[in-house]
C-alpha cells in the first residue's frame, strides 16, 4: 500500500515527535529555564485570547451548566438539608454559649482580624481550567498589575480554594488545594488541634490533615480552618493565609487515636465548579 520511503518517513517523524515530548518532559522536570520561558511566552499571548473567549462563551457555558446543575441539585439538596439542620442546632448552642461567656467583644475582634476587606481582596474570574481529572490548576484574569504575587491565598465564598502559582502581567495561574503540591497549616475551629492539610490525590472531595500531635482527637464533623501560618513562613512573619478561613469538614479518621492517624476532610469549595475567586493580596496580621 505504501512505498518504503513513506514508511521510513512516517516512522522518523513519529520517533522525532516522541523524542521531542520526552525531552520537553525532562526539561520541564529539570527546571530548564528555556522551556519555562517558551511556556510563559505562549501563555502571555494566549491568556488575553482565553479571557475574550471565556467572556464570549459564557452564555453557552451557563446553558450547559444549567443542565448539569439541575441534575446535581437534587442530590445536593438532601445533604444541604442535613447540614442546615446540624448548623441550626449548633447555631442555637453557640448563641447560648456566647451570651453566657460574654465574649462578644473578643469575637468581634476575631471577626475583624479575619475580615477579608483588610486583606486587599481582588476579585478575579476563572478563564481557564485544565481538562484533567485531577483538578490541579486554573487560570484567572488578574495578574501582577492588580497586585497579585506568587503564594497569595485564593478564596471563594465557601472557603480556601488555593494559592497563586505563576503571575503574569494580566493573568495568573492558581494551584488548587486539591493539587498534591499544595499544603497549608490548619487547625480545628473548636479545639484548636493543629496540622497540615494536603491533597489526598485522585479525589477532589478529599483532603488529608496530618496533625502535629500524633494522637490528637479530631471528631468527625469538625470544621477545619486555616491556622494563619504557612509551612514556609519564617517565625514572626505574617502569613499570606489569614487565620480562620474555612477549609473543610472532617469526613472520617483512619486509625483514629494512633500515631499514624489520617484525618480526611471534604473541602467546602467545589474546585470543579469555580467561576469567580478572591485573591488576598495583603498579608494577614498576627494570630489573634
Amino acid at each position, binding site marked *: 500500500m505504501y512505498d518504503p520511503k513513506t514508511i521510513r518517513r512516517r516512522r522518523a517523524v513519529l520517533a522525532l515527535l516522541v523524542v521531542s515530548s520526552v525531552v520537553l518532559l525532562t526539561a520541564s522536570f529539570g527546571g530548564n529555564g528555556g522551556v519555562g520561558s517558551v511556556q510563559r511566552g505562549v501563555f502571555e499571548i494566549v491568556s488575553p485570547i482565553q479571557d475574550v473567549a471565556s467572556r464570549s462563551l459564557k452564555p453557552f457555558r451557563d446553558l450547559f451548566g444549567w443542565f448539569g446543575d439541575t441534575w446535581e441539585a437534587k442530590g445536593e439538596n438532601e445533604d444541604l438539608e442535613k447540614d442546615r439542620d446540624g448548623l441550626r442546632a449548633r447555631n442555637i448552642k453557640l448563641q447560648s454559649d456566647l451570651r453566657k461567656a460574654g465574649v462578644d467583644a473578643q469575637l468581634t475582634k476575631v471577626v475583624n482580624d479575619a475580615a477579608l476587606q483588610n486583606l486587599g481582596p481582588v476579585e478575579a474570574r476563572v478563564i481557564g481550567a*485544565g481538562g484533567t481529572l485531577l483538578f490541579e490548576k486554573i487560570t484567572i484574569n488578574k495578574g501582577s498589575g492588580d497586585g497579585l504575587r506568587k503564594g497569595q491565598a485564593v478564596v471563594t465564598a465557601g472557603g480556601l480554594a488555593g494559592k497563586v502559582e505563576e503571575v503574569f502581567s494580566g493573568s495568573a495561574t492558581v494551584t488548587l488545594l486539591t493539587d498534591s503540591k499544595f499544603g497549608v497549616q490548619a487547625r480545628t475551629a473548636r479545639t484548636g488541634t493543629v496540622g497540615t492539610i494536603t491533597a489526598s490525590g485522585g479525589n477532589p472531595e478529599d483532603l488529608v490533615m496530618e496533625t502535629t500531635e500524633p494522637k490528637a482527637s479530631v471528631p468527625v464533623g469538625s470544621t477545619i480552618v486555616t491556622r494563619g501560618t504557612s509551612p514556609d513562613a519564617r517565625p514572626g512573619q505574617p502569613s499570606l493565609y489569614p487565620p480562620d478561613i474555612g477549609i473543610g469538614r472532617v469526613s472520617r479518621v483512619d486509625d483514629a487515636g494512633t500515631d499514624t492517624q489520617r484525618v480526611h476532610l471534604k473541602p467546602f469549595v467545589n474546585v470543579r465548579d469555580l467561576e469567580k475567586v478572591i485573591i488576598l493580596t495583603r498579608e494577614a496580621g498576627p494570630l489573634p
Partner: protein
Amino acid sequence: MGPTTGPLTARLAIMGVVVCITQIAAVSQITLFGAHADVVPIVVALCGLLLGSLPGAVIGFACGFFVDCALIQTMGLSSLLYLSIGYGAGRLRELRDPQAAVVPAVVGGAATAIVTVGYSLMQFMLGTPVAVTGLLIGQIIVTILVNTLLSLPVYAGVRRWLVPVLPDDPRRRRRRAQTTRLSPLSRA
C-alpha cells in the same frame, strides 16, 4: 508537497488553536454528571482518522504543546498522549479503513480513555500521589461516555471544516470503489 498541503495545514492550525482555547476557556468549566468533557483528544483522534497517522501525530503533538503552555503544566505530557492517539487513529484508517457510522464515536471514546487513564498513570509515574478512588474511576468512565456521545457531532464539524482541502475524501473514495466494482468490463 501536494496542492492541498498549504490550505490543509492552515485549516488544521486554525482548528487546533480554536479547539484548545474553547476547551480551556469554556468546555473544561462545564460539569456534566460530575465530570468534564474534553474535546481536544476527540478532535486529534478524528483528524488522524480523516488524514492518516502522520498528520494525526503532528496535530496531536501541536495540540498537546499548546495545552501544556496555556495551562502552565508539565511540558511534554499532553503532547505524548495526544500524538499517540492521533497516530493510532491514523493507523486504524490506513490499515482497516473502517466505514461504519459509529466509528468516530468509538474512536473518540477510545481516545478519551487513553488520555484520561494515560494522564493519571503518567502523573503517578512522575511522582504525583494519585490514589485510585471510586470517584476518580467514576469520573473517568463518565468522561469517556460524554466524549463518546460528543464524538459524532464533533466529527461532523471537523469533517465539514476539512472536507474542502482533504487530499482523499473517504466518501469520494468509497464512491469510486463502488463504481469500479459495478463495471468490471470498463477496464478492458
